[in-house]
């Protein structure tokens, strides 16, 4: 038996394994051994010093010590720090910061979050796009077309010579543009959307032009070239895949980082995520407008055609834009385009 001064005793309460019974108890560290005694000094448990686990501190909750057989010992004894040579753990120290140090941690978190959204997410998205197998990219186009055809598109009613000159224009632009990214292939398709003028690109390089668009821009090949060049730019910059991965990544990270925000806030958070995605698609539209200008110049078309078309859209359908839109305002896009042309 060690001398009285070598003993280190902690007062607390103990629970037997898988038992709710609570008893005031004293944990005694005696060299390499540990023993648990009740108030009367009866030994309840003994264990080797190495077999017991002291859990890291958490807030002001009682310190938790687990014996190998599942006995639980809880204590607030201030002697614990000395007995176990324990400072509560690094996490607890960080969590207990106050004043300017806490402010520094908060600011660090803010900066880290900004870096995550601005740098890490785009890098991860680019990596995911690069890892996507080419066969999958082509299948994305086939699948989307199937759904679009079933839901909102009919076969084209354009006469063959119309299709011929638009195809020739498409080939001009394609030849002038940088090569399509890995897995993508430039393909032009005609569809009718009830006469509505529209055009869009799919991730694998499929560009769809509606009858309504060809009809509206028959007399302005520069404008039609502008629209198609804009779609080719979407394909070059891989906006489709980026959007898909970005939405998935931000959704997963938001739900994991925020945890359970409680009632009301959980639905607000979903709306916030939607707004963030809309900001993403608006940025992609601006990029595609900017990317269209060099393609049009290289192919010998007047890039102002696209700006004219956007002005026309603004006149006919309203300006659009704003935080609730997938596209920026048409007038803003036309202005940015003309700025890019002058530069």
């Amino acid at each position, binding site marked *: 038996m060690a001398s009285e001064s070598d003993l280190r005793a902690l007062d607390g309460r103990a629970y*037997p394994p898988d038992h*709710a019974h609570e008893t005031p108890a004293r944990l005694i560290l005696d060299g390499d051994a540990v023993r648990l005694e009740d108030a009367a000094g009866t030994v309840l448990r003994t264990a080797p010093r190495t077999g017991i686990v002291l859990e890291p501190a958490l807030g002001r909750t009682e310190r938790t010590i687990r014996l190998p057989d599942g006995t639980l010992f809880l204590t607030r004894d201030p002697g614990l720090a000395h007995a176990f040579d324990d400072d509560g753990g690094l996490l607890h120290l960080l969590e207990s910061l106050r004043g300017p140090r806490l402010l520094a941690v908060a600011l660090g978190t803010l900066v880290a979050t900004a870096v995550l959204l601005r740098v890490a997410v785009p890098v991860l998205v680019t990596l995911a796009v690069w890892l996507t197998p080419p066969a999958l990219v082509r299948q994305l186009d086939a699948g989307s077309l199937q759904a679009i055809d079933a839901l909102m598109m009919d076969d084209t009613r354009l006469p063959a010579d119309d299709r011929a000159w638009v195809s020739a224009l498409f080939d001009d632009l394609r030849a002038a543009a940088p090569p399509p990214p890995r897995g993508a292939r430039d393909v032009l398709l005609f569809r009718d959307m009830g006469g509505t003028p529209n055009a869009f690109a799919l991730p694998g390089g499929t560009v769809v032009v509606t009858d309504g668009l060809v009809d509206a821009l028959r007399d302005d090949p520069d404008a039609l070239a502008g629209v198609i060049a804009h779609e080719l730019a979407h394909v070059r910059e891989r906006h489709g895949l980026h959007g898909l991965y970005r939405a998935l990544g931000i959704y997963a990270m938001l739900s994991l980082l925020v945890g359970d925000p409680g009632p009301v806030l959980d639905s607000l958070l979903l709306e916030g995520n939607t707004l963030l995605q809309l900001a993403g698609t608006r940025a992609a539209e601006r990029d595609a407008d900017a990317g269209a200008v060099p393609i049009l110049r290289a192919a010998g078309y007047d890039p102002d055609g696209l700006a004219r078309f956007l002005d026309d859209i603004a006149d006919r359908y309203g300006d659009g834009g704003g935080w609730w839109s997938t596209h920026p305002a048409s007038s803003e896009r036309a202005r940015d385009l003309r700025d890019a042309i002058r530069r």
Partner: protein
Amino acid sequence: MATDYVARARDKAAADDRGAVEAVRFDGTAREYFGIWIVNLLLSVVTLGIYSAWAKVRTQTYILRNTSIGGRRFDYHATGGQILKGRLIVVGALVAISILTAAVPLAILLFYVAAIFVFPLLIVRALKFNARNTSWSNVRFDFQGSYGGAMRVYIGIPILVALSLYTAWPFLTRARQRFFVENHRLGDRAFAFEKGIGGYYLAFLIAAGIAVIGMVAFTILFGGALTATFDRMADGGTEEPVIEIFGIYLALFLIGTPVAMVYRAMARNLMYDGTTLQDGHRFESRVRPARLVWIAVSNAVAVVLTLGLALPWARIRMTAYLARCTTVHPNGAFDDIAGRIEEDNRAIGDAYSDIEGLDIGGVGI
């Protein structure tokens, strides 16, 4: 040695005061939780979300260790590694499903059908993982609900309720609460549930009344303006009704929040009042619906205005309020409760509920 220890427990139990009321205590503070939350967030962000599994454990442990009944605290036992594994599997599956449905859109129908069968399984798994990794006074909880039982209350009864044009909704709430309560164990003791349907219909009628009053008020205040806008649109106007659509949305939110919160508050009270633990410990909940609506709405406003910094305060405030409203009426001593529960490290259901927000529905807030 162990038997000696337990035998003395029995003597002490016999001497314990019977019939006293024990309040549920919550001792967490916003100040302290803010530190934990901000460190969790910082580490989660710099590890691209990976640390969030350990952050969840730390948060749950903090909340549970600060919650106590009769001076005996709860505790949380899941490990970050288990939760990370579950989350990686769930995130991987969700990404694969998203890409697959983008490539083969018709596959989404297949996933919808599969979801009907997988969803109840995930709920049972989530409840089981949570129960088995939660303890009170060194005794673990368990959840023994079956897949068939979950199918019944999460798929079968909802279909019948829809056929009743939702007039049977209170029966669904009660069925889910029964499934939740009766399948929980504390050690080897079962929880029992018995509650008449009357209170649920009262809650339902009050919630429906608030919805009707809200919609009437909205129509009187803004109906004219909305009709005028839609008339102009029908006449070929080109303005976008953004303000109007946003306004309708906001109104639905402003009416829907109190409706849902009032119903949930009353349903929570009914659930606790209908619950007993084997041997007769009873529970009681006195959440005031108006107070709960106020806390939920003011929490949300505070969090938005502080760009999220008030989240820890909001969470502590809500947890403390719910604890304050909850009491236990013991029948005999707590010391006798015991029982060994199998370990559970399969966190897929729990991870799914963290990411997609499983709606367990009608059981607590």
